[in-house]
C-alpha cells in the first residue's frame, strides 16, 4: 500500500511538471505579455527595462530552467497586473473554490447514490423512469446554461437567492447546485447501471439464500460492490468540476481560483496563470489519490495486490 502511494506521488509530480511546462510553453509562444503591460507610448528602453525586470530578456531554454527552479520552490513571481505575489493571490482564492467543489460533490453523491440505487431496485417502475430522464437531461445541459437558468428562476423570477456574490450560505446555493446537477446526473446513471449489474450476480442470490434481510443484501453487499464504478466515475468527473467551476465562478462572480484563472488568462497575467494552474493540478491529483485510497478501502483485491 505504501509503495503504491509512493508510486502515485511520483506520477503526480511528473504530471504537474508536464502541465505547468505546457502552460509555460503556450504562454510564451502565444504572445508577448510585456507588450501588453507597457503603455502604448512607452519607449524601447522602457520596454526593455520591464522585460529585464520580469526576466523576459533571456532565451526560452534558460527561462524554462529558471521557471522550473522557481516553481519547485513555489515561487511564481508577481502578478503582472496587480504586482502582488501570484502565489498569495491564488491561495487567497483557494478556499472559495474548495468550498464550491466539495459542496457540489457532496450534494451530487449524497443524492445521486441513493437515487441510482432506488432506480435500480425499482427497475422499470415510475421512480426508475424519472431518474433516467432527469439524469439524461442533467447530462445534456451545458453547465453555463444550467447556471443561467438557475439565476433566472431563483434570482430573478422568484428572487429568493442572491444571483451572485460570495460570503453567506445563500450565496453558495446556486453555484454549487449548477455544478452538482451535472455530477448528479452522471452518478445516478453509473450507480443505477452498476447496481443492476451487481444484483444479477450469483452471490446476491447466495446472500438471500442465507435468509438475510434485503437491507443487508442491498446496503452491505450490493451497494459496496456497485460503488467501485461510481468511484471511477467520480475520478473522471473531477476534471469537469474544475472546468465547470471556471465557468460557474465567472457566471456567479464567485471569487475562486477558476475566476482568477479566467481573468489572468484573458489579461495574459503569466505568473498568475501558472500559479493557478499549478494549484488546480495539485487539487485534481490530491483528489484522485483520495479516490485511490477509497478503492483500497472498498475492494480488498486492490489493497492486497498492490
Amino acid at each position: 500500500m505504501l509503495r503504491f502511494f509512493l508510486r502515485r506521488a511520483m506520477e503526480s509530480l511528473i504530471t504537474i511538471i508536464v502541465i505547468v511546462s505546457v502552460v509555460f510553453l503556450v504562454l510564451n509562444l502565444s504572445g508577448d505579455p510585456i507588450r501588453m503591460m507597457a503603455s502604448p507610448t512607452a519607449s524601447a528602453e522602457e520596454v526593455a527595462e520591464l522585460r529585464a525586470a520580469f526576466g523576459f530578456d533571456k532565451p526560452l531554454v534558460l527561462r524554462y530552467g529558471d521557471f522550473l527552479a522557481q516553481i519547485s520552490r513555489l515561487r511564481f513571481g508577481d502578478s503582472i497586473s496587480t504586482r502582488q505575489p501570484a502565489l498569495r493571490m491564488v491561495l487567497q482564492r483557494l478556499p472559495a473554490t474548495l468550498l464550491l467543489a466539495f459542496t457540489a460533490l457532496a450534494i451530487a453523491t449524497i443524492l445521486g447514490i441513493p437515487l441510482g440505487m432506488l432506480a435500480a431496485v425499482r427497475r422499470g417502475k415510475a421512480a426508475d423512469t424519472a431518474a433516467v430522464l432527469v439524469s439524461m437531461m442533467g447530462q445534456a445541459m451545458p453547465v453555463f446554461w444550467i447556471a443561467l437558468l438557475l439565476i433566472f428562476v431563483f434570482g430573478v423570477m422568484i428572487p429568493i437567492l442572491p444571483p451572485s456574490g460570495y460570503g453567506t450560505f445563500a450565496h453558495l446555493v446556486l453555484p454549487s447546485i449548477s455544478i452538482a446537477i451535472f455530477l448528479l446526473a452522471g452518478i445516478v446513471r453509473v450507480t443505477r447501471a452498476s447496481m443492476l449489474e451487481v444484483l444479477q450476480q450469483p452471490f446476491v442470490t447466495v446472500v438471500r439464500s442465507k435468509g438475510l434481510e434485503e437491507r443487508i443484501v442491498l446496503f452491505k453487499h450490493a451497494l459496496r460492490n456497485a460503488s467501485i464504478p461510481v468511484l471511477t466515475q467520480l475520478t473522471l468527473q473531477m476534471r469537469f468540476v474544475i472546468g465547470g467551476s471556471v465557468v460557474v465562478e465567472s457566471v456567479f462572480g464567485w471569487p475562486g481560483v477558476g475566476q482568477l484563472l479566467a481573468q489572468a488568462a484573458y489579461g495574459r497575467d503569466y505568473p498568475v496563470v501558472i500559479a493557478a494552474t499549478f494549484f488546480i493540478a495539485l487539487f485534481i491529483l490530491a483528489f484522485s489519490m483520495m479516490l485511490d485510497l477509497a478503492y483500497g478501502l472498498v475492494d480488498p483485491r486492490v489493497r492486497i495486490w498492490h
Partner: protein
Amino acid sequence: MSDAAKKPLLEVRNLRTVIDTAHGTFPAVDEVSFVLERGAVLGVVGESGSGKSMLALSLLRLLPGKGRIESGEALLDGRNLRALSEREMRGVRGRRIGMIFQEPLTSFDPLYTIGDQIAESVRKHLGLKPRQAREKAVELLSTVGIPRPDLACDEYPFQFSGGMRQRAMIAMALAPDPELLIADEPTTALDVTIQAQILELLAKLQRERGIAVLFISHNLGVIAEIADEVMVMYGGQVMERSEVVRLFDAPAHPYTQSLLEARPALDRAPSRLRAIPGQVPSLESRPAGCPFHPRCGRAMDICSRARPSRSFLGSGQEVACWLQGAGNAFQTHARASGAGGES
C-alpha cells in the same frame, strides 16, 4: 414438534413454476411432486434446461424476476412454504434449508472475508455475537477440511482455490444447522479429483449430521454415489422416480434408459450426456403430450397427444410413460389455460 416430526421433512405437491418470456408464459417446473424424508438424500438428474435449478429456487422462493410459482405446494414439516410471509421465509432460508450453488467463484461476495460471510448467517439465525460467530466460522471451516482455518477465516474469496471455495460454501450452508440442504450441481464447476473430494465430504457430513439433501446433478455417476433415491427430470416434469439401485438395474422410463446408455463406461469425465439423439427443446418450444416424445425411440401415437400420468410400480418406483399403460391423461394446467404452446 412431535406432530411435525411425523410428517415428512419436505413434501412437494404438483409444484408448477412458470417463467414469463417474450413469447408468453411457460412452465419451467411442471407438476412436480415428491417426498423427502428426514436424513434422506434425493438425487435430481436431468439434462441442462430440465428445470432442476428452477425447482430448487422455487423451494426457497428465490426465483429470478421473471419466474413465479403458479400452483402446487411445498410443505416443510407440513407447513406450506408458499403461504409464509417474506419475513417468515427468511427464517426458513439458511436456517432450515441451506443451499449450495454450482459456481464457487461467483457465489461469494468478493469484498468480504470468507469468515464474515459465514458469520453473517450464524449471527442472524443463531443470534451469536460477532466473536462467537467468528469462532463458529473457524470451527466450520475446519470441519470442511480447510487447513489453518483461523487464518483462512480472514481471507477473501479470491485468495481461495476453487475446491477450497466450494468447501467454504458447504461450511456456509451448514453454519446455521439446517435440516435440509439443497446442493445444485455442487461439483460440476470443479475438476475431477476435486469433484470426488467434495462429493466425499458432502456424503460424510450428510451421514454425520443426518441432514436431508436434495442433490441436483446432470451426472448419474455422481448421483449414484450419494443418493438414496433418484428423480429424473425432463422438460420440467418428473419422468421417473426410484430408489437408486433400482433405477440403475431396472430403469422403467425410456428417458432414464437413454440417460444410462449415454453414460460413459467409466464414469469419470463430467459427461454432459450428449449422446441422446435429438436436442432438449427450449422452454418455449416444449412439445405437447409426453415432453420426451420427439426423441423417444418407442413413442406411440398417444405420446404426442396426451401427457402420461404417473404410474406406481411398487417399492416406490414411479414412472410417467404411456408404456406403463396407465389410465387417463394427466390434466395439466397448461392445457387448461392454453399456455405452454400445447394445443
